[in-house]
């Protein structure tokens, strides 16, 4: 089942087209990554999905309903973690979460327990009486997340939730995203950090200049540009290396020899590194170093757009 269907979505700011005829679907239970450099149009897309911005054209359907026709229904099922911190510095952590959750119709004991749950989830339960003023950047980011999940939305949209925080908090947040997903939430995760997206997302859309350049699983995306990876093996001497024997290993496409380095082209999903290594061990050829060159999303992005993700 598709939780979100976007068709021909367009947003203009004056003459400038920030989102350009974008179409995509997000299936239930996915962690869907929006990968794109700064200014690619990720936030703009997200803001249209959550109803913060009006679209110029196209349609957005969530849970089978047109978002602008059933705004209240849709809003109840969305939790947005905005790119910028959106918390009240002069309300305590508890008050922040409780206030926002309260706007979703929760009250009384239920409101209290959900608030505590959300705070526990992001690891701020002990700090619930503190003011965000005293929080570190990472804690603020976590509170920012707590404010978006207390009402238990079906779709959680996170807009660059890890910008500018320490590695520990980042790890914590990535783990929480996966935990939320296991609990049944569909998640749209926006980032310009390729590693994060590669680590947690089940499906990815590469966005550039307001368009989806490519989408699919990370394997699909990688296979767009190449089917093979390169394995470099440095050996002591190549005299006893039988190129044809290596070629016979399943998945190996080509083998070349250059001085002491054997360069093996092999299919991406072949999982044959063990067999290759066994060949060397069995034939008592000493391996000095082994290097694997596998395409990652960064390479995909670079190959498709000609730019790196960090280019702004």
């Amino acid at each position, binding site marked *: 089942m598709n939780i979100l269907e976007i068709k021909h979505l367009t947003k203009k700011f004056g003459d400038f087209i920030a989102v350009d005829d974008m179409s995509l679907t997000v299936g239930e239970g996915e962690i869907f990554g929006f990968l794109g450099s700064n200014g690619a149009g990720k936030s703009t897309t997200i803001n249209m999905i959550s109803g913060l911005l009006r679209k110029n054209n196209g349609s957005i359907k969530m849970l089978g309903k047109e978002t602008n026709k059933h705004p209240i229904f849709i809003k109840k099922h969305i939790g947005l973690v905005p790119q910028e911190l959106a918390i009240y510095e002069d309300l305590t952590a508890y008050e922040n979460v409780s206030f926002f959750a309260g706007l979703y119709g929760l009250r009384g004991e239920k409101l209290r327990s959900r608030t505590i749950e959300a705070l526990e989830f992001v690891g701020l339960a002990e700090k619930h009486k503190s003011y965000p003023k005293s929080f570190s950047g990472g804690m603020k980011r976590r509170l920012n997340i707590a404010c978006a999940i207390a009402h238990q939305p079906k779709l959680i949209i996170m807009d660059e939730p890890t910008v500018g925080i320490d590695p520990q908090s980042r790890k914590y947040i990535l783990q929480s995203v996966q935990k939320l997903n296991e609990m049944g939430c569909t998640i749209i995760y926006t980032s310009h950090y390729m590693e994060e997206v590669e680590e947690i997302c089940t499906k990815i859309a590469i966005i*550039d*200049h307001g368009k989806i*350049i490519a989408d699919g699983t990370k394997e699909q995306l990688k296979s767009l540009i*190449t089917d093979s990876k390169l394995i470099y093996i440095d050996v002591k001497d190549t005299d006893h290396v039988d190129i044809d024997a290596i070629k016979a290993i399943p998945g190996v496409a080509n083998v070349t020899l250059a001085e002491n380095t054997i360069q093996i082209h092999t299919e991406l999903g072949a999982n044959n590194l063990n067999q290759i290594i066994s060949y060397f061990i069995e034939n008592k050829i000493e391996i000095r170093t082994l290097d694997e060159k596998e395409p990652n999303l960064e390479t995909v992005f670079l*190959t*498709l*757009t*000609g*730019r790196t993700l960090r280019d702004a």
Partner: protein
Amino acid sequence: MSKLILIFFIMLTFLYAAAPNLAWGILFLLLYISLNITIHLLKQRYIVSLFLLVSVTITLIACVQANPIFILLMPLSILELCQLWTKKTIIPIVFAISPVFYIQQELQAVFLLVAIYTITIFTFEKYNEQKHVKNEQQLDWMRNTNQKLIKQIHENDTYLKQSAYMFRLEERNRISQQIHDDVGHAITGALIQMEASKRMLHVDKEKAEELLQNAIGITQEGIEHIRLTLKNMKPSTEQVGINRLKLIIDEFTAKHDKQTILTYDGDIDQVNAFQWEVIQKNTTEALTNTMKYAENSTQIAVNVIVLNKLVKVEVKDNGAGAERFEKGLGIIGMEERSASMGGQVIVDGTNGFSVTTLLPLQSN
């Protein structure tokens, strides 16, 4: 302006009151005026501040020595002074009003009035000045853009005329060449043979017949040749694909003073004729755009890469680029062509200007 009014007001009060220290008062006033005129001629912040401080001191001395009414000049000087050092409005206002607690009661009301008047005028002046500067900048910008646009229109016009003429010329050349090469030779050959046969007709019938047969043969061959050339006009598409692209680029380099380089990589044969069609049209369009918009670019790189599941064609110049641009008909046309093949166009102006066409390969 407000200073003048203030000074005028003080003079009047002074004269009416027939204050005892008239001479002193006038001296201070003159001093004050000359100081403040000088200030307007100065530029450096420190020196201006210094002058303003002196001016404040004079005002204070005048207050004590000549007449308390001089205190009315204070708020303005304080505002001017503060404005040099802080952007906040509240602090200067507080400072400007603060003397109210130190002055005689008869003057308090007048002082407050004057202070508020001064603050109002001053704030509005500042506000207007900022607005003025902004407007001025905008006007400048618009003038520039206007000029550029007019120039562009002009260039487009000439370019259009030129290319129409070029096309006609090229077409004529091509046809005459073809006729000359293929049919011309055959007909000339046949003509010579027939001429000879006519001469021989009465002398040597057999020879004439042979010549005529030759002529027929040549003509037949010619016709066959024409047929072949016509047939050859649709040669193997894959070969023509990259070659035609080369041709397009060679022609472009010949006509324009831009170094244009074509590179390609990967298994070119996987690109089919329809995709070549899109690639050629998009490349031509992108090159034309470079001519139109990137006047100061010197190099254009056209790069065709066949990847695993798609082909990517990038046309990139080293001009100024454009952070933001409006999609014209050209770009929309490229997008539509690519979309019809299930592909994408990425237009990027952050580093030079590049147009990238991505088309999925069908065979996979």
